[in-house]
């Protein structure tokens, strides 16, 4: 499709978008722990301080709550701030600032104070980093009015959604899966916006609608290719925007496929999928739905050991099994698919997305 076009990773796309916005807008500040260190947040802020100086790329003390409040104060005063956390968990220390001062100030001040802050937070996974560095807490942020919550899945979106977030006058949270940083794809050099108010239809299909986000989209596409061989064509929707949530596209798709599978990066229970299902069920938006199902993390912390992590995380395997189950395929076909899948199984281990991944953490 994009032959001869520039292919880069999502982390390079993020870096590029940030750099271009720094070029464009003088009052744009990047701040965070590690933003101007030699690894530059997995490369996403690499060397920016050399070009823009350390008053625009501000290295922060290890003070997440303070720095969030500081970023909010800065952005109330006509700055645009990009705050970066190497792990979602570090942002847990700053939820009071995010929920109260970032999310509510525009409303409470009757439209006076805008808080145009963008907060990037990275979900850890792999290499046994364990329970406190691997949580995927998007539901918690998505519950709070006043925030916008994005989870890009492609390098193209990574760049364009970041740009749109930076142009947005509201507090926008971007949650990036650690493994998504490695995803490669076509990215135009010039800056551009993409919408940040709805999901995207990735692949047309007919038997079942699969909704996923972030890194899981990669797993779903992989699974889908296998299913295609057997005449099963899932329609794949990249959720992209968790708040504001717009389920129109899902509804449309479901009217056709009648089967819905939601694949979450976070805990299944009280997760993102629930609101989608609730809206569909509540408003009877689709007639004669045949099946609805969710795949998400089980109800306990992430174990470090790779032997346990293997069963903890959900991947193409669970997706394929679930589709087979939802579509009620006959036993023979089922067996065929599964044996074919086992042959195609990605050879990388469960705790690494590709052979290069051994940190940084």
């Amino acid at each position, binding site marked *: 499709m994009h032959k001869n076009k520039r292919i880069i990773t999502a982390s390079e796309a993020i870096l590029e978008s940030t750099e271009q916005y720094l070029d464009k807008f003088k009052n744009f500040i990047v701040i965070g722990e590690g933003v101007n260190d030699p690894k530059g947040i997995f490369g996403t802020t690499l060397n920016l301080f050399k070009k823009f100086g350390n008053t625009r790329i501000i290295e922060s003390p290890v003070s997440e709550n303070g720095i969030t*409040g*500081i970023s909010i104060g800065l952005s109330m005063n006509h700055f645009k701030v990009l705050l970066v956390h190497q792990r979602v968990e570090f942002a847990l220390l700053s939820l009071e600032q995010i929920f109260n001062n970032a999310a509510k100030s525009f409303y*409470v001040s009757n439209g006076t104070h805008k808080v145009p802050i963008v907060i990037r937070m990275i979900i850890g996974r792999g290499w046994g980093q364990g329970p406190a560095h691997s949580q995927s807490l998007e539901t918690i942020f998505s519950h709070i009015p006043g925030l916008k919550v994005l989870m890009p899945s492609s390098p193209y979106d990574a760049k364009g959604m970041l740009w749109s977030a930076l142009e947005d*006058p509201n507090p926008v949270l971007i949650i990036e899966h650690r493994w998504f940083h490695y995803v490669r794809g076509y990215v135009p050099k010039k800056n551009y916006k993409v919408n940040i108010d709805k999901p995207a239809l990735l692949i047309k299909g007919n038997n079942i609608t699969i909704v996923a986000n972030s890194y899981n989209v990669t797993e779903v596409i992989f699974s889908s290719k296998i299913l295609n061989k057997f005449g099963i064509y899932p329609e794949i929707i990249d959720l992209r925007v968790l708040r504001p949530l717009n389920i129109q596209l899902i509804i449309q798709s479901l009217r056709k496929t009648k089967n819905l599978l939601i694949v979450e990066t976070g805990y299944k229970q009280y997760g993102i999928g629930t609101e989608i299902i609730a809206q569909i069920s509540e408003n009877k938006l689709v007639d004669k739905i045949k099946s609805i199902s969710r795949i998400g993390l089980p109800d306990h912390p992430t174990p470090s050991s790779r032997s346990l992590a293997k069963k903890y995380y959900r991947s193409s395997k669970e997706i394929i099994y679930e589709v087979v189950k939802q579509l009620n395929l006959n036993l023979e076909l089922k067996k065929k698919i599964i044996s074919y899948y086992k042959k195609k199984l990605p050879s990388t281990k469960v705790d690494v997305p590709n052979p290069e991944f051994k940190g940084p953490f």
Partner: protein
Amino acid sequence: MNNLEKRILMNLLKIRLVEKQISERYAEQLMRCPVHLSLGQEACAVGVCQSLNIADQVYSSHRCHSHYLAKSGNLKAMLCELHGKRSGCCGGRGGSMHLMDVSVGMMLSIPIVASIIPVAVGAALSFKLKKKKNIVVVFFGDAALEEGVYHEAANFASIHNLPIIFVCENNKYSCFTNIENRQPNDDFTRFAKCHKIKSHKMSGNKVMEIFYKTKDIISSIKKNPSPFFLQLDTYRNVEHCGPNNDDYLNYRNNNEISYWLQNDPINLYTEFLKKKKKLSDKTLDKIILKLNKEIDEAFLFAKNDKFPKIDTLDKFIYAQK
């Protein structure tokens, strides 16, 4: 009285009289939101804010009435806010703990203890980055220093030499709890020193002394940007939250109470002026009369103002570009 002295007097009295009227009228149940009155603490706000320009910014907490008024916040908009009316400074959405009047640099008040402090430091950073010569003042109580975020913000202000004055109004209590039960002592300059921030501790009830000290601090900051920590020891005359006196609950001892009542900031200042023959009882009465008239009018305005339109309820959830 020279102009300055007069302005200070007017400011002090205005806050006192507004708070008194809120206290007296509260039982009518037209102001249906929690109120944390500044009675007894007026000199802190007035002494500090007197030297500020309009472009200097003030940030405050739940006990923000005095800061709002001392920074020349619109009185009607304040009382409308307390009444939940549409001309309120937040359109009735915030209530008494969210006072702000951006047009005069009264930027924001926030009721979560200490939550405002880093926000104010962020504002100071914006001044520095824009190379503005203005300063930020953030007011908070003694309990705010128990929140870790104060330290995170102070450290940042220190390493970046930000133009901000941290003003701690030490009234010795967090709700009903004396400082003795919360911290090793009440010399809070230790929390400035530990971040290599200059500091000063003084009475919060002597308005002229606060004024002169603040003036010095400000001119030094304007020459050489860096944070300053100012501790003002003061006392609240009524209950933590609400219009009444609650000393029947016996959480504050009588000696303490009477010491501070004797050192009431308004009395101290009027006595000082009188002693210097700069103020007569008659002039004072006249001023009070005039101020009360303005305040009465503002209350009337607030009473008669309409409630916010019900269909505005879901406005301003998200900003449009």
